[in-house]
């Protein structure tokens, strides 16, 4: 089944688990997705294979980056009229504190949805949403 078909089916059932599981990279880092009404929260459960700093231990900065990118892509996929994979053009991440070995959550905000480019802001937190471990902004190409 193509991504387009998967997205359409997810919309009908309002369950996006099959979309996440269709993407090998998302499965590798162990991502998930929760819907709360119309809101979407992406999840990254604590996972040993995502560790970067072995002493703290802390999540690999690259994994947080991947989580952010994947969240922004999926967030847009869910909104798009004709769902095709948005391509990340650029991504800028600020690491505010170490992502510790515990569950992480991400929420995306589309600040601008143009015809071809979308600007998405992403916040990642662990304990409290008010204390983010990372913030990011990304531009994605829609067509």
């Amino acid at each position, binding site marked *: 089944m193509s991504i387009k078909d998967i997205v359409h089916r997810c919309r009908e059932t309002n369950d996006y688990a099959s979309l996440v599981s*269709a993407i090998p990279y998302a499965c590798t880092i162990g991502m998930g997705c929760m819907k709360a009404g119309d809101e979407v929260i992406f999840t990254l459960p604590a996972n040993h294979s995502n560790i970067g700093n072995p002493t703290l231990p802390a999540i690999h*900065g690259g994994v947080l980056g991947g989580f952010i*990118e994947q969240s922004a892509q999926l967030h847009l996929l869910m909104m798009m009229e004709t769902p095709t994979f948005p391509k990340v053009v650029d*991504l800028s991440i600020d690491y505010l504190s170490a992502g510790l070995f515990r569950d992480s959550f991400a929420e995306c905000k589309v600040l601008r949805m143009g015809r071809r480019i979308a600007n998405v802001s992403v916040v990642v937190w662990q304990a409290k949403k008010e204390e983010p471990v990372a913030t990011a902004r990304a531009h994605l190409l829609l067509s």
Partner: protein
Amino acid sequence: MSDDKAPAQPLALEDGLNMFLNGVKHSMVLGMTLEEITPEGLIVRLPYSDKIIGNPDTGVIHGGAITSLMDQACGLAVAQAMSPDFDITPTIDLRIDYMRPAEPPRDVFAYVTAYRKTRSVVFARGVAYQDSRDQPIAHCVANFMRMGLSKVPWQAGPGAEAAS
């Protein structure tokens, strides 16, 4: 005294960087290897594998895996710049620009340099490529903070010996 040991430096540096890399679980999961150390920087390889596919329709690698590669490679370049001293240097921020998708099923390389070192911050930048550095897949700049700790993770941890 230690200045006299300059010729022996490359080997010790390579061992130290490999120990650093091997201690990073996620980079091992993705199969990253230190490919080459140059006077200015270093090259890290990310092998193509099914588990880093981002688009199942095309088999193109996910940008997230490239981000992990660049973050890891920049971290190693920072360690190289700090050498012969070591420090814990978390990433403060990272920006990545994607120029073109990586072509499946080929490996991706990162060439990175730590181009400026201050008392508190080390600045790194690099490119991800497949054929040549002149045809980059992505550009990256990342800054790292110097924690100023004498102990490094792979020396402090109980599994330090196992890492090599």
